[in-house]
């Protein structure tokens, strides 16, 4: 029972290569069926995200032997020349394959350290593969372990808690002031890419109302339709600033769009209710001195970048704790694997000894003619009892072995000494 992994990710392959070997859900299913029908893998799971394409599998033979076949399959399936993939592909076996998957689901192998999406992608890939029957006992156990690792890392470490993009940092900071966003409203000035990112974050956090203001009304309409917002005419400050709690600004303008006086008047009109300003424009869209106004919380692009940087350092500081959780679960999985193998090896050994016993009795049959059938039966059952007794002690010792490495070594030794290749479980 071995595990093999072949794949590529953002570290080993540029996006031009990654996009050529990515799998849709349907392709993943087809690949799993083909791998099984060709006898390359008995269990298969394809994990394909924008940053990685990986095939996890349990081969019928040695994992090392099947890896080249898997690489060829990957290039053939996607019609990409093998030489193009050659250097980008990595192969991991057994312990390293398990460890790799657990690190992936923990977010330790992600482009954005600790990102949360990968756990959902692993869950989805597993659910899908399980549904169409591509997984079996080994991959089921492996991926359940991976999901558990991901959950533990997210709940027991700070790896995934802090925002890592300017847009999410801004929205999370607004939550530090107002709490949940579902009773809040926001005004978005400008309709560029960065505004879209913030709008996305605000929508994800359940913002109650979204006002969009842009010099080009057409572009504002487009964004409003896409995200379910309402367009406000450019310059209708009094109406907009009076009602909203959050203002996000990313307008191309040489002069500040929101001046201190304007905000001062707006704060008076809104009775000094707290206002959160996110200035993502360059040059800045909001006059810097507005930050001094009572109950105004203002952050520009540099402030948010600095906060993201602080968070990145904090996340990196959490890596050793996350790695410890990964190691713990790798140990658990290998221990399970070894115990399963132990049962298989002991069963195979028992079968082998019974075969030997039957052959031995058959060979000595001529010299045992004086025994009745009942006596022969009794003798056979006594020999079986003896075999069980002989097997009992080593099996218990193997089972009781605390050190995983020794346990695996002992199982290997038993297998090599007593079982032929054909009989190895």
């Amino acid at each position, binding site marked *: 029972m071995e595990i093999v992994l072949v794949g590529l990710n953002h570290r080993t392959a540029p996006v031009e290569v990654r996009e050529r070997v990515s799998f849709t859900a349907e392709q993943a299913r087809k690949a799993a069926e083909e791998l099984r029908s060709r006898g390359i893998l008995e269990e298969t799971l394809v994990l394909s995200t924008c940053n990685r394409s990986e095939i996890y599998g349990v081969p019928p033979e040695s994992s090392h032997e099947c890896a080249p076949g898997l690489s060829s399959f990957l290039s053939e399936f996607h019609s990409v020349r093998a030489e193009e993939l050659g250097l980008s592909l990595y192969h991991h076996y057994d312990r390293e394959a398990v460890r790799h998957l657990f690190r992936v689901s923990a977010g330790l192998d992600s482009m954005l350290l600790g990102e949360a999406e990968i756990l959902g992608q692993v869950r989805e890939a597993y659910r899908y593969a399980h549904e169409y029957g591509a997984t079996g006992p080994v991959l089921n156990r492996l991926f359940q372990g991976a999901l558990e690792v991901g959950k533990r890392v997210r709940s027991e470490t700070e790896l995934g808690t802090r925002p890592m993009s300017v847009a999410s940092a801004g929205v999370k*900071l607004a939550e530090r002031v107002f*709490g949940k966003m579902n009773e809040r409203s926001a005004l978005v000035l400008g309709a560029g890419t960065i505004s879209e990112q913030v709008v996305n974050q605000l929508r994800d956090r359940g913002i109650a109302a979204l006002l969009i203001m842009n010099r080009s009304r057409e572009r504002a309409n487009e964004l409003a339709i896409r995200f379910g917002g309402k367009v406000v005419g450019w310059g209708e400050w009094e109406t907009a600033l009076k009602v909203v709690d959050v203002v996000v600004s990313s307008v191309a303008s040489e002069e500040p769009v929101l001046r201190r006086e304007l905000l001062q008047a707006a704060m008076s009109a809104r009775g000094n209710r707290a206002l959160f300003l996110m200035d993502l424009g360059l040059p800045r869209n909001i006059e810097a001195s507005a*930050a001094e106004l009572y*109950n105004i919380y203002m952050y520009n692009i540099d402030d948010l970048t600095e906060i993201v940087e602080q968070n990145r350092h904090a996340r990196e500081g959490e890596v050793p704790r996350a790695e410890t959780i990964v190691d713990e679960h790798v140990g658990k999985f290998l221990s399970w694997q070894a115990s399963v193998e132990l049962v298989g090896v002991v069963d195979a050994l028992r079968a082998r000894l019974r075969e030997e016993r039957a052959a031995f009795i058959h060979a000595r049959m001529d010299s045992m003619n004086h025994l009745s059938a009942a006596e022969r039966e009794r003798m056979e059952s006594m020999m079986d009892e003896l075999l069980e007794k002989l097997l009992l002690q080593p099996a218990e010792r193997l089972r009781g072995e605390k050190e995983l490495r020794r346990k695996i070594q002992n199982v290997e030794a038993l297998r090599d000494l007593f079982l032929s290749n054909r009989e190895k479980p």
Partner: protein
Amino acid sequence: MKDLFLILTIVAYGSSLALYLRFLGTGREVIGRLGTVLLGLGLIAHYFALLERSRGLHTVPYHDLYGSMSLFGWLLALTYLGLELFHRQRSVGAFVLPFIIVFFVAAHLAPADRLSPAPARGIVFAFHVTLSILAYAAFALSFVFSLIFLGEERLLRSRKLGNVVWRLPPLELLERMSRSSVLVGLVSIGIGTALGFVWVDRLRAQTGYFDPKYVITLLVLLLYALYFQLARTASWRGSRASKLCIFNFFVVVMSFTVVNLYLSQSHRYF
């Protein structure tokens, strides 16, 4: 087994503090919940410790300074637990528990000499004192919430967020928690003061009696009522209201120390 409840209370409060601190650091909900459970157990053990002490000294808990401190700590814990459950926010537990522990330990480590038996003053007096201490505990809580508000706001404005800011309650929730505790305090002090006047009236059969404590209590009541009103208005909401709340608590401390010890005739117990 004499100090059983004393030890149980310290262990429960101490463990609760450790768990609240861990919750603040990790954000693991299960740890926070465990902290709350241990605080609840601490409250129960503290209640029996108070009872044991009062029985041992043949008096009521508020008869001496130390007993009052312990009762204050207990009511502080009780009010906090109520607010935590009401607002579903436990990340400030780590800031409140140290106060509870200090009051409890200071009260119970003090020499427990036999006191002269407390004169039987009746249930009205008992409610007057207990409700007044409850009010002070609630005001102390609003003081802690206001301090956290100002600290968190300063960190948010400085952009140096550190680890804790992401775990603290949002500023608006802290304001709401502060207002809730002030409301508890206002109701308690209002009823407690009224009962005090009823008791004095019965005792002396006259209404013209004057004590500086009345003035400061009235001032405390007015200041917190003002806070409660202003904190809901747009122009005071935020740091101004928190600063007013902190100022008010200093008046409470003045009432408890300078006025009680040097000026009051009828509230000089200790």
